[in-house]
């Protein structure tokens, strides 16, 4: 007891000092993050609340005089909007093609350039380049590449098949768009896979090979399971990007006078966010368009949550080496 009474007076000021220190630390923390916090409140939180309120109005982007609260009308209309349903169907189709194909390609590229091969840095650069090429340039590159008159694709196919004349952007616009997006995204995914591959300790593979495992077995049973967190990351980001596709289909118009953002893309490339964009910026239906976008957000969120739930079954978070 005597010891305790002796200790007490000493601990209280120390605790007090710790508490003050904690307050000071908290103030420092909030000061340090204040630019982001301020920006988040002014440029994200308030606009998001505004957008949500806007989706229950008939706002036209200009005039506040006619602003009217329309309740859930916009949402009811969106659910019955045939164009929106069609566009959502096209978007899901594009996603179901581009995401798996892209993922397999990215992984294959990473495995290939991770081998001990000559010029591996040159190969990496070539695969990475399309990822840094801006969208306007990428669309131009593919437009000219598949152009019926000056493009390489038809010229090459024309050697094999006489009178070959497919107008790719008119007849198969979604096919060209899929190639463009897979080509453009591959390098980014590859680099993330490479980072993952280099995070796997070489001893794991060596141990398996000494035990007599073949190259394929090492890839299948050692590398792939340890890569599942990276696969998961690329899968989620790939889906989020694919569902929001807008600029590429807007710009990939069949016209010859440039990339015509004013025109509606061909019906095949009429994707969900394209529809929302046209409702908002062409038809000035800011309220209705916002409702369309919130519904998309709900779909994106739902899919992400679903993926995170299934991830428990197949994503292997290994122990840190």
């Amino acid at each position: 007891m005597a010891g305790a009474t002796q200790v007490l007076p000493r601990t209280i000021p120390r605790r007090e000092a710790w508490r003050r220190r904690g307050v000071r630390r908290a103030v420092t923390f909030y000061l340090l993050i204040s630019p982001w916090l301020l920006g988040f409140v002014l440029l994200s939180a308030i606009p998001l609340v505004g957008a949500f309120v806007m989706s229950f109005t008939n706002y036209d982007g200009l005039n506040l005089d006619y602003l009217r609260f329309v309740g859930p009308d916009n949402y009811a209309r969106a659910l019955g909007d045939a164009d929106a349903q069609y566009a959502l169907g096209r978007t899901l189709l594009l996603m179901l093609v581009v995401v798996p194909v892209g993922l397999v390609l990215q992984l294959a590229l990473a495995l290939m350039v991770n081998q001990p091969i000559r010029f591996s840095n040159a190969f990496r650069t070539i695969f990475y380049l399309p990822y840094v090429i801006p969208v306007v340039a990428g669309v131009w590159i593919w437009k000219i590449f598949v152009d019926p008159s000056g493009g390489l694709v038809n010229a090459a196919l024309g050697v094999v098949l006489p009178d070959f004349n497919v107008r790719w952007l008119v007849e198969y616009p979604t096919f060209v768009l899929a190639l463009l997006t897979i080509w453009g995204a591959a390098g980014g995914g590859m680099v993330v896979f490479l980072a993952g591959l280099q995070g796997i300790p070489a001893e794991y593979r060596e141990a398996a090979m000494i035990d007599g495992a073949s190259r394929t077995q090492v890839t299948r049973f050692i590398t792939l399971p340890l890569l599942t967190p990276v696969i998961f990351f690329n899968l989620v980001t790939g889906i989020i990007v694919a569902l929001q596709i807008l600029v590429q289909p807007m710009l990939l118009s069949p016209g010859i006078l440039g990339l015509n953002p004013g025109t509606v893309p061909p019906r095949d490339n009429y994707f969900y966010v394209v529809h929302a964009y046209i409702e908002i910026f062409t038809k000035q239906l800011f309220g209705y368009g916002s409702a369309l976008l919130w519904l998309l957000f709900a779909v994106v969120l739902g899919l992400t949550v679903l993926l995170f739930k299934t991830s428990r079954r197949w994503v292997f978070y290994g122990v840190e080496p």
Partner: protein
Amino acid sequence: MSLALARRRTSPAQTGVRYGPVVVAAIAFALPIFWLLVTSLKKQSEYGSALFPSVLQWANYELAVELADFGHFATNSLVLSTAYALLAVLVSALVGYGFARHSAPGRGKLFMLVIATWMVPNLVLFVPQFVLFARLGLTNTYWPWILWGLSGSPFAIFLFRQFFASFPRELDDAAEVDGAGPLRIFLQIYMPNAGPAIAASAIFMFLWVWGDWLYPALLLRQDNTTLAVRMANAYLDPHGNPLQTVTMAGVALYVLPLIAFFAFAQRFIVRGIVTTGIKG
């Protein structure tokens, strides 16, 4: 590479298996870019008639610069991209440092918010921002990019947080004993050692503005807009016919600086991503 892998070498068939697919893939990836360069060097009369140029038409590049007021729009792009990248990197580093090194109630939840803003579809956020900027009279100005820069980028904040979290804490303690405040520790200890993260995020921030078409198309005027918006239009001859060859020369000039830079900095970028962001 590892010893066990190195020992199993290498018949011609194995070499073929190792190099065949990667060479084929590289050709497939490079062909569209190669074709851009080929087209940019043709005579306009050769477009659609000759596969390759008979004489390389470097004059197309001069025309591309003259006919589109290229320098003006390139300057706009350069100014806007640099200003945004500079602000966004500095602010994101500061905020990332805060998240990595200073604890406070609510820190975890706030960091979740950083990640969450990353997931909101672009347009969901942009439409109300557009309305806001229009109401404040900030359309047709570069203010939106300045404001975006000043509030940092979620991607870069995440990158810096991960990067700074791996720094040894003893550094801070030593500096604190010497009487340095958090800002000085950040500027004199963290920033000088954050080379890879600064480079990787600066490049991506710069590239985002340089490559973006949507926001300048919606927010800026024809005369103060960026090169991306200008390049979306084809070059035309006086009769209004498209000049595909000159257009491709213009597009090449628009991307060549990036390509040259990335070919040069490729190793550095990959290392930056490996050491900072997502580890397997």
